[in-house]
């Protein structure tokens, strides 16, 4: 994003000192430092050897069962459950990182619950949930007994009787559903007491030090930054608190939205204190967060649902993005190209994360990012309710409905909610399609950065040489892509089981993701604290941003539905039947 709308374009000369003085590079070093610590902690000091042994045992059991039984047997599933229990985040380092990066949690009527839960409260919650768990557990055990009997009956005929095999498969499916329900019910009996206040203080200090070091290298003063940063961190914490309330979450008003709202209210009423402004390092926070986000962009996820998923998520999305951008430029004549592309990416790719990545790549103004995200939140809240209701009303099948929602609703959480509201299979398809779209962020940010550097930012009639392209190119995008490529390579070389347990459930979900979330929360708090409402309201004039979003989303809805239908029902009906 632009630091200052009046800033003159860089003279284009790169220096070696840029590597330790420029914001983009410092964001890369900081992001990669965190990534490196997580990789070393999990790979060198984590439970890797223990996992290797346990995976071998489970895989041998599954292989033996697959050779013997023509369907997935109870023993096969139990071995799968043993594999799924293996998570890197359950290691000592994982627990340490999780504890010290905790943000205020959910609450319903008492905000204190988001910071503190006493042992008495935890025990009361567990006791309340216990009867439902015992009921679910009994149902699961009954379903398991029935499945065992059916499987033994099929085994007695050496699995040659199709009717007995089908009966066994059906009973095992019932057991799996009951088993999952029992697992979900069990989680609600495992509440633990907590107090996040000391860890929040520790985290604030940690961030102040590492970010302050970066600020100092950029030539700014360390102590003034640290002093003001406490306020930015406080706003981000309050944003997490306010966004943790159940109704606020339902309507999509989470920590990021509250960070902007709270910050803007302060900035435009009492006024952000002058000593806080040097700490509102929006771009530094966002760029570091984006480098960390790169680690979560795993290209292997693209094939999670096969070719249909690729077409729905990776073919329709760029078409919608480009068409919406062209529509915005040629028809609506949007006054700001950067606002246009940020809204187009936000709506077509995957909401907030895409908006952040693209806004940074094209150096959009923070007000433009705020506007794009605000619109996305409003329409996401509407679509999360309206789409599943419409799908149910017209009788669209779950798989098609899920694919449709996955490709059109902006935020992954809302997609999961809408999918689950429609049905289990809809949720599986919707969430997976959304995940595949999320992976597109890296490519989108890179392409937008290239396009902006080579075409949009160049002066009319002037050719842009390779060196100038390099100098103008937002370097943090390279850090973002490098993290993505490195992690994708590691993931593909580790194999599915170890990749899931140590990389996905360890380094990423138990490491980089936790820091990334905080960096984005801090950046939105900083955006709010440094945003003038009058500047923001300028962009609403004529309603063009809303018209752009609505038109683009309408195209997205039509194309996604058509593509989902073609791929899931005409070209690959066997995939749909298997799901």
């Amino acid at each position, binding site marked *: 994003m632009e630091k200052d709308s009046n800033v003159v374009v860089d003279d284009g000369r790169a220096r070696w000192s840029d590597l330790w003085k420029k914001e983009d590079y410092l964001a890369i070093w900081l992001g990669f430092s965190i990534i490196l610590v997580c990789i070393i902690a999990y790979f060198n000091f984590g439970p890797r050897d223990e996992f290797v042994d346990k995976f071998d045992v489970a895989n041998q059991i599954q292989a033996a069962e697959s050779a013997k039984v023509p369907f997935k047997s109870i023993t096969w599933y139990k071995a799968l459950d043993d594999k799924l229990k293996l998570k890197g985040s359950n290691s000592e380092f994982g627990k340490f990182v999780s504890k010290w990066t905790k943000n205020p949690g959910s609450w319903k009527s008492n905000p204190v619950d988001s910071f503190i839960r006493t042992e008495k409260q935890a025990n009361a919650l567990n006791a309340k949930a216990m009867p439902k768990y015992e009921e679910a557990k009994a149902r699961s055990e009954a379903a398991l007994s029935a499945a065992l009997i059916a499987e033994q009956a099929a085994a007695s005929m050496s699995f040659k009787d199709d009717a007995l095999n089908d009966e066994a498969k059906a009973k095992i499916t019932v057991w799996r559903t009951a088993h999952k329900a029992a697992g979900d019910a069990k989680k609600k009996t495992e509440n633990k007491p907590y107090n996040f206040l000391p860890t929040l203080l520790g985290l604030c200090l940690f961030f102040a030090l590492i970010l302050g070091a970066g600020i100092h290298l950029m030539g700014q003063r360390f102590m003034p930054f640290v002093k003001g940063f406490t306020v930015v961190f406080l706003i981000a914490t309050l944003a997490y608190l306010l966004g943790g*309330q159940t*109704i*606020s979450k339902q309507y999509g008003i989470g920590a990021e939205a509250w960070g902007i709202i709270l910050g803007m209210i302060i900035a435009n009423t009492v006024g952000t204190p002058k000593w806080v402004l040097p700490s509102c390092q929006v771009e530094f926070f966002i760029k570091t967060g984006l480098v960390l986000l790169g680690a979560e962009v795993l290209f292997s996820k693209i094939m999670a649902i096969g070719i249909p998923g690729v077409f729905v998520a990776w073919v329709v999305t760029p078409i919608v993005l480009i068409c919406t951008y062209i529509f915005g430029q040629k028809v609506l004549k949007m006054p700001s190209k950067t606002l246009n592309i940020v809204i187009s990416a936000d709506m077509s790719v995957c909401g907030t994360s895409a908006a952040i990545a693209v806004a940074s790549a094209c150096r959009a103004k923070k007000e433009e990012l705020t506007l794009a995200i605000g619109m996305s939140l409003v329409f996401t809240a509407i679509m999360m309710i309206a789409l599943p209701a419409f799908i149910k009303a017209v009788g669209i099948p779950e798989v098609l409905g899920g694919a449709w929602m996955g490709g059109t609703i902006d935020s992954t959480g809302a997609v*999961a*909610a809408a999918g689950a509201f429609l049905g289990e299979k809809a949720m*599986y398809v919707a969430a997976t399609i959304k995940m595949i779209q999320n992976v597109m962020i890296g490519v989108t940010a890179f392409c937008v950065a290239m396009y902006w550097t080579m075409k949009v930012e160049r002066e009319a009639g002037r050719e842009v040489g390779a060196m100038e392209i390099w100098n103008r190119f937002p370097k943090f995008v390279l850090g973002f892509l490098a993290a993505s490529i490195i992690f994708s390579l590691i993931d593909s070389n580790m194999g599915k089981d170890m990749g899931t347990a140590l990389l*996905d*459930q360890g380094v990423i979900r138990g490491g980089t993701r936790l820091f990334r979330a905080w960096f984005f929360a801090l950046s939105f708090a900083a955006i709010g604290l440094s945003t003038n409402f009058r500047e923001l309201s300028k962009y609403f004039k004529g309603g063009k941003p809303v018209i752009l979003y609505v038109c683009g989303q309408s195209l997205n809805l039509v194309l996604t539905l058509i593509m989902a239908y073609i791929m899931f029902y005409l070209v690959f009906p066997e995939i749909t039947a298997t799901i």
Partner: protein
Amino acid sequence: MLEQSLFYRTKKFILILSIAFAFVYGLLPLLTDSFDILNRMSLFLEKTEIDPTRYYYTDVEQVIESEQYLRTVL
């Protein structure tokens, strides 16, 4: 004048913050209770603990579940 100005700004801060809180914690719950579908979604989200505000796939537990289910069946 400066004191008045600060007083006025503080008053504006409290007023706008109160409006924001009233909207999110007052009006939206009322809206939720007034419409069956919104109420059902609210109860559903509470039961499943799905957080609709989460924007990336690694923040959402149901994505892992979905990925694992599809890996098993496909």
